């Protein structure tokens, strides 16, 4: 199947993403979900604001999915990232990898989120009780 890539201001839909990668040959599904925490580096976070360079992010996500597909023979992958304002407890990113055996799903999912964080042009601003800051690294 074609990988699913979503960049959206709307809340992410975990069940729809899992359903989209499900297939009778799938034996293991690993989902990673990044969630807005109420604290970071000792600050009380009020909410987050995500900015995205959308055209490039989409291409870059397609590139890292393609790398993961070749490395782990993946067939069923979905990557969704939300942008705009997100409240505490809301999901900013959901990655779903479904494979015949679980080892590949764990490894590929971890690779995808780590590589997404370091190479995809999406930025996070923390708005805390004592000021705001674009978070790096």
């Amino acid at each position, binding site marked *: 199947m074609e990988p699913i890539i979503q960049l959206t201001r709307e809340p992410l839909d975990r069940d729809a993403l899992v359903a989209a990668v499900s297939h009778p040959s799938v034996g293991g599904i690993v989902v990673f979900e990044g969630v807005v925490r109420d604290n970071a580096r000792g600050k009380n976070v009020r909410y987050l604001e995500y*900015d995205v360079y959308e055209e*490039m992010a989409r291409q870059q996500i397609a590139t890292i999915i393609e790398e993961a597909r070749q490395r782990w023979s993946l067939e069923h992958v979905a990557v969704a990232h939300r942008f705009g304002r997100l409240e505490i407890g809301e999901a900013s990113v959901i990655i779903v990898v479904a494979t015949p055996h679980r080892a590949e799903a764990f490894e590929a999912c971890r690779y995808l989120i780590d590589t997404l964080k370091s190479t995809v*042009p999406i*930025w996070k601003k923390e708005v805390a009780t004592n000021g705001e800051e674009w*978070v*790096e*690294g």
Partner: protein
Amino acid sequence: MKIKIRYFASFRELIGQGEELLTVADATRVVDIRALLVERNPRLQPIMERSVNALNHRYVPAETVLHENDELVFIPPTGGGQ
């Protein structure tokens, strides 16, 4: 020739706009634009130093030469959160 620069995240906030069109000489390189912007707005220097370059949606080195209608973006560090 004309190029487009788009600003995101801290760049957009420091510069106060999301994009601009710039008229530059032929054979201008990305690194020249970096210098120009910092000269024009010295507050950009710290974030420019930590940023890499994307030209037409791909990462490129600073020595890359620009062409008519190129879209240039400076990419500050991504990866908020562990």
